[in-house]
């Protein structure tokens, strides 16, 4: 298959992003992620397949969805029940819903289609020094697609960045990061056991990949650490993370991202059990952590 015809599930192409790399950027979110972080704000990105989102507050209970479902997965009623096991994410119900209470999340798009949309704002990238950021989910789940997309953006003269958890085979990493001008790499915890408890996977391979991206592939890197109170915000872990970032060499930054509650309600819309709630660290606490990190020899900032 030719590169422009490669396809992957995309759940959002977000223009006008200011905090995901230099300048004004368009962020492409791919669906599918090998991690299951307890605090995840984007549960719709976990599964690579298309998924139905249901906004109960918009639903009028008209029953149009039940009639449209080819699999008979919807039981009509004031609050129609969707049997998620039978739902294939075909989107027939979303098409007929007059209230906009049903929306299909995730659409297979080709590299050419994504590029056409993502490069629409190219004029604004040029003036601001921005470009395209690939995010997810996890872009490394779709290595051929991701590599082709980044190569296409670069060929168009646009700066490229990849936001990733780095949990992937080395070949995928090599394939994708060959086309990245900037790596935004998550480190959720420095202790492998705790990492597994928080995200479902150990961290040795992740840290190895990060070293490889920074040192062997020479991609400018920012380490991004989500700050989740009670999970990874101990001073010990922060220091370890900062020291790790510092060990990658000069020009590696550390971004401390305070957790937020903007993913609230998403689980319910997907028919999943609610995610646990974490308190949001205040500006004062974030500044404390930032200073602590800088003391370990890495330039640190709050936010991306």
């Amino acid at each position: 298959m030719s590169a422009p015809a490669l396809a992957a599930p995309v759940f959002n192409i977000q223009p006008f992003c200011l905090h995901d790399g230099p300048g004004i950027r368009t962020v492409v979110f791919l669906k599918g992620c090998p991690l299951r972080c307890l605090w995840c704000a984007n549960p719709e990105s976990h599964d690579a397949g298309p998924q139905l989102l249901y906004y109960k507050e918009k639903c009028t209970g008209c029953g149009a969805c039940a009639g449209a479902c080819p699999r008979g997965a919807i039981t009509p009623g004031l609050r129609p029940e969707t049997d998620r096991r039978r739902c294939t994410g075909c989107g027939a119900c979303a098409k007929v819903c007059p209230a906009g209470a049903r929306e299909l999340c995730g659409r297979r798009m080709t590299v050419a289609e994504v590029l056409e949309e993502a490069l629409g704002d190219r004029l604004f990238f040029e003036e601001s020094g921005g470009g395209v950021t690939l995010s997810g989910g996890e872009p490394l789940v779709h290595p051929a697609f991701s590599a082709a997309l980044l190569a296409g953006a670069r060929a168009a003269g646009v700066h490229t960045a990849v936001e990733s958890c780095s949990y992937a085979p080395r070949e995928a990493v090599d394939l994708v990061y060959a086309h990245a001008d900037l790596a935004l790499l998550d480190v959720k915890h420095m202790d492998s056991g705790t990492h597994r408890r928080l995200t479902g996977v150990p961290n040795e391979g992740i840290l190895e990949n990060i070293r490889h991206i920074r040192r062997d592939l020479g991609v400018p890197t920012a380490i991004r650490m989500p700050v989740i109170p009670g999970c990874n915000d101990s001073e010990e872990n922060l220091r370890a993370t900062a020291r790790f970032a510092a060990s990658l060499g000069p020009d590696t930054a550390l971004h401390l991202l305070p957790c937020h509650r903007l993913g609230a309600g998403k689980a319910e819309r997907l028919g999943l059990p609610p995610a646990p709630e974490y308190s949001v660290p205040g500006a004062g606490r974030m500044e404390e952590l930032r200073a602590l990190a800088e003391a370990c020899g890495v330039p640190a900032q709050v936010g991306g």
Partner: protein
Amino acid sequence: MTDRVLRMKESLRVNKYPLCVELFRLANESLDRTGGEPMLLRRSKLHAHILDNITVFIEPEDLLCGSGASKPFGLEMQYEYGVWTKDEVEALKSEIYTISPEDEEELYRLNERFAGNAANQNLMEAMGKSLGDSERLWPFMKSGVILPPWKDRRGGSGGGFAMSGYGLGPGFSLVCVDYALVLEKGARSIIEEAKACLRDLRYTTPDAVEKRNFWEGVVIVFEAWIRFAHRYADLCEALAGEEKDPRRASELREMGRICRKVPEYPAETFREALQSFWFTFLMVCPSPTSTAGRFDQYMYPYYRRDVDEGRITDGEVLELLEILRCKVMKLNRVSGKANRQKNAGMAKWYNWTVGGQKADGTDASNELSYLLLEAAKETHLPHHTVTLRVHRGTPDELMVKALECVRSGLGMPAFLGDESYIRFFTEQSETNRLTVEQARDYCATGCVDGNVQAETRTQVAVFFIIPHAMDIALHGGWCRYTKERVGIDVGDVTKMESFEEFKAAVFREIAYLMGMANERLNVEMIAERELFPDVFRSALMHGGVKAGKDMFSRRFPFENGAVLGAVGGVNAGNGLYAVKKLVFDEKKYTMAQLLEALDADWEGYEDMRREFRAVPKYGNAVREVDEMVAEVYRFHADTCLSLPCVYGDTLKPNAISISAHQPGGALTGATPDGRKGGEILADASLSPDHGQDTHGPLAVFRSAMTVDQDAYQGTLMNMKFHPSAMGTRADLEKLASMIKTYLTHGGKHVQFNVVDRAEMEDAKVRPEAHPELVVRVAGYSAYFTRLPESIQDEVIERTSQSL
């Protein structure tokens, strides 16, 4: 802010503004005495009489002499609007104005005594005679295709001309005079020049007498202006004599010295230049559209020299600029009640332009540009307006400074694109253009209407409601609002076979109606040129004294006399595109069905309406529909540029709706873009229709860049931002680059409103009222009303933290 500015700012909080009758009395006294004389001399003597007799006063702590009225915070009743009827005065009193019983009594007495004087009576008569008595134009005036719909053949929308609202009216001229001339040469040299012209006058041309009248008028007015300044000098000296505080006494003596010197003689220091500027500004400021133009340019030499020679510090300059803001806050003007409603509150457009380019194309910004922005930010007063001219070489630092000012919640400055503004003046036609060096001296007059300082001016501006005109085309020339025949019959639209044929028919009708709008503008211009000559501002145009003519009787190298504003161009383009797609391309509906649905205001056609609404709309970077909107604007512009203007050349296109999209929408029936009859039209001229842009601000900019804006005197784009999108310096730099991209790729104007918690709370309850509210969510910005409630709450919570 200094304590002095703080106290002055505090003193701005008054509940009621006093109505003053002095100007009205003095003007009418003068007109009474000068009956039968040429209007140039009558108006000159009128101005001199006011300058010699109006009460002068100096408020505590003020460092600048001169006010807009005979009482502090006062509003002088304008004589140009004719007689002030009791119901007009009662309406004023019920708002934020008050009038003393003696003054009110005197006003009615003056009305009676001078009923025949008021020059504006003649304006109403002249316009009524031409427009009301014409069987062709009268239905058009009533239709509301240009606002407001007239109700009275004798000239007006029901309350006389003063209330007709959307014309600029006699006092509203869009012009920036040559302040530098006054600062550098002084009034005395202007008088000497006029006297020399009188000496050299030979009666060999048909306009010789007109010129004599003009030069005599110049001498009369400028001499009176010098006496006016000397009255302030006398007052300063008297107050200094009584003053117990030695510091204040010395301030007053210094102010007196300055008023003895300027505007009569050239200014030599920043303080002298500022006083000279302010006296000049007060002379042109009966108009609420008066502009200070490029203040940071003509004031800079005085600033530079004083700072270099240690006569003034930046702190002292800032204080003076802040006092200036307080003084502008107190300027006011009374206009009819209908006009006040349309301009929502105390609308004033006292515009200071900063930045931009010098004549040679290099960046013009300087320390004063920053200090003006700082004064706006620090005082947080809505007036005067500051507008920033942006070109490729505008320093990032200045952009960031401007955005800090926007972020503070002021919504200022607006950003203007030099490239497109300059092309308006340089590329229009062989016979009507300026050199690029001249055009680089443009500034915002009024709102964002471009005029070049002392080189071009605009007298009349009226709004044209395009969707209303389109509706008339669909109905065989009949107006649904007045149920009368207004336009021409462009053929039965239900029988048209192609979209091109349909579109051509609609455009033919619009062009016909625009032709009548142009006649309406010309009628007002002819009448106003006759009735309201003004030697002061005319002498302060380039070559003004030598020309010997009022500025509205001169043909300028770039003639910009009248503009016709396009309102609802976005609705019209969206509507045409929906017709193309659903009626002609996909043939889902017939034109007959569409007409039925529109006539029924979509009642009973809800599914059909939903489909017409679902067709892609302007503002989402969808090429086909954006190009349709661009074609509507192109057509409006081309048509304007084909209609003769009586001041010379042609009518010029403009596209700034101010608030006309509201009354314009109120009288426009249902439209094919899915809009119901009576609903508001799209805001500004390039903002998407309410809530129809779903792809963020960059898509809106890309849509707007499809429209050829160069032909327009001004266009408008309003955006709303949440402060969280403007948190760090890096954020501001990115926004600055976004603005620059738009303004260097065909964009003309953009301004931002920054929203606060209260607005977001309201947006939760009434989302329909806040469709364009942009907030920052996680890593991106989104439309607030599209967010789930939980996230709305989160964003609101976060705002209160970040502010």
